[in-house]
C-alpha cells in the first residue's frame, strides 16, 4: 500500500494508517534532521513535531501523491527554525570552536596532531562529516542531504523547496565544492578512508 492509499484510509478514519506512515517515514526524516542539525535529541524533537504537524494538516494536502515532498518540506522548515534557534544560543563558529579545542581529536586542521586518519573509526568519521555539513550554508546543506542521503531526484528536491531544478543543481555543486575544501583541509579523502575503514 503506497502513501497515497494510506492517507486516503487515514482520512476515512483509520488512525492506524497514519501510524503506518509514521513507521515508514520516521527513519528517513530523523536521519535528515540529524544530518541537518547535528544533534540526535533535537532531531527527534523535530521529527516528532513534523509528524504532529502532518497529523493536524494532512486534510489540507490536496495531492496525496505529493506526500513525500510535503513531509520533507515540513521537516526542512522545522530544521531551519531549530537551526536559527541553535545559532542564537551558540553563535560560536566551527573554526572558532576548533581553535578553542586544540586538543580535540577531530581538530584535523591542527598540524601538530598526528595524521587524523591514523586512528579514525566510524563514529569519528561521522562526527567529522557532521561538522563539515554544519559549516556550509543551510540552503546548500539541505540539497546535499536530500540528494546524498535521502536519494531524491533533483526534480523532487526542486519541488520540495519550491526552487528551479537549476538552482538546486547549482546549490549542490557549490555545496559539494565547499565540503571538498573542508575535507581537504582536514586531509580526508576516499583513498585514506578506504585504507583505514
Amino acid at each position, binding site marked *: 500500500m503506497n502513501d497515497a492509499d494510506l492517507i486516503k484510509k487515514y482520512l476515512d478514519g483509520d488512525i492506524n494508517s497514519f501510524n503506518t506512515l509514521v513507521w515508514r517515514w520516521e527513519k528517513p526524516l530523523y536521519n535528515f534532521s540529524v544530518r541537518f542539525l547535528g544533534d540526535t535529541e533535537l532531531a527527534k524533537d523535530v521529527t516528532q513535531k513534523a509528524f504532529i504537524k502532518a497529523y493536524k494538516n494532512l486534510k489540507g494536502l490536496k495531492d496525496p501523491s505529493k506526500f513525500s515532498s510535503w513531509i520533507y518540506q515540513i521537516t526542512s522548515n522545522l530544521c531551519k527554525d531549530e537551526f536559527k534557534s541553535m545559532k542564537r544560543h551558540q553563535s560560536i563558529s566551527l573554526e572558532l570552536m576548533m581553535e578553542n579545542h586544540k586538543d580535540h581529536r577531530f581538530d584535523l586542521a591542527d598540524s601538530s596532531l598526528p595524521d587524523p586518519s591514523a586512528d579514525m573509526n566510524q563514529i569519528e568519521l561521522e562526527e567529522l*562529516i557532521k561538522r563539515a555539513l554544519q559549516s556550509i550554508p543551510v540552503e546548500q546543506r539541505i540539497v*546535499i542531504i536530500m540528494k546524498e542521503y535521502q536519494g531524491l531526484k533533483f526534480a523532487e528536491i526542486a519541488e520540495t523547496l519550491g526552487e528551479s531544478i537549476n538552482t538546486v*543543481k547549482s546549490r549542490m555543486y557549490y555545496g559539494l*565544492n565547499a565540503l*571538498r575544501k573542508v575535507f581537504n583541509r582536514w586531509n580526508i579523502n576516499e583513498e585514506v578512508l578506504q585504507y583505514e575503514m
Partner: protein
Amino acid sequence: MKCDDIKILLMDILYEEADEKVIARVKDHMKSCDGCRAEFEALKETSAVLQKWEDVDPDMNMVFVREQNAFWSNLRERFRISPARLGYGFALGAAALFLMLALANTEIRYDQGSFSMRFGIMKSNDSAKTVSTMDQALLTSLQEQNMQLMSRMIEQSEQRQRQQLISALNQFSNNYQDVRSSDLKTVGTSLDEIERELYRRLEKRTNEQYNDLIRQINFQEGNR
C-alpha cells in the same frame, strides 16, 4: 562547450540523472579539459566521503491515537464543515427566518408586562391593539375569578378544619366520660366489697367476743 556550462551538468552525471546525449557531450569535453575532469573526480570523492555517514534507527516508537473531540468538533468532522462555512450557514438561516417573518407581517408587541405576537398577510395596528385590550380585560377577569376561587377554597378549608376539631373534641369528651364512669363503677364496687368484708369481720369478732363473754359468765356461775 565552456567549462562554466559543464559544472551543472557534472551534477547530472555524478548522480546518474543525465541522458546519453548529455553524458556524451560532457565526456567529450572532459577528454580535452583536465580542470573539469579533476573537478569531477574531486566531487565524486566528496560524495563518497559523505556516503560513509550511515543511517541510524531513530528508536522513537511514535504512535498516534484518535483524540476525543468535543461535540461541535465531532459535528464538524462528521459533516466536514469548516467553522467559516458553519457561521455562514447560521447567518443564512437567520436571514431566511427574518425574511419569512417579514413576509408574514409578524408583529411582536410588549405591553404592560405582556408580550403579544401576531401574524397576518395584511397589516392592521388597530385590530392588534383591540386584541391586546381584550386580552388585558380577559386577564383581569380571570385574575378576579381566581382570587374569588382562592378565597372560597381557603374559607371552605378553614371550616372543614374547625368541624374536624370539634368532632375530635367531642370524641375525646365522650371517651373521657366513658373511662370516668368505668373507673367510678370500679371504685364503687370495690368500696362495696370492702364494706361487706369489714362487716363480716366485725360480725365475726363481735360473735366471738359475745361467746367469750357467755363462757366467762357461765364459768363464774359454775364456781359460785
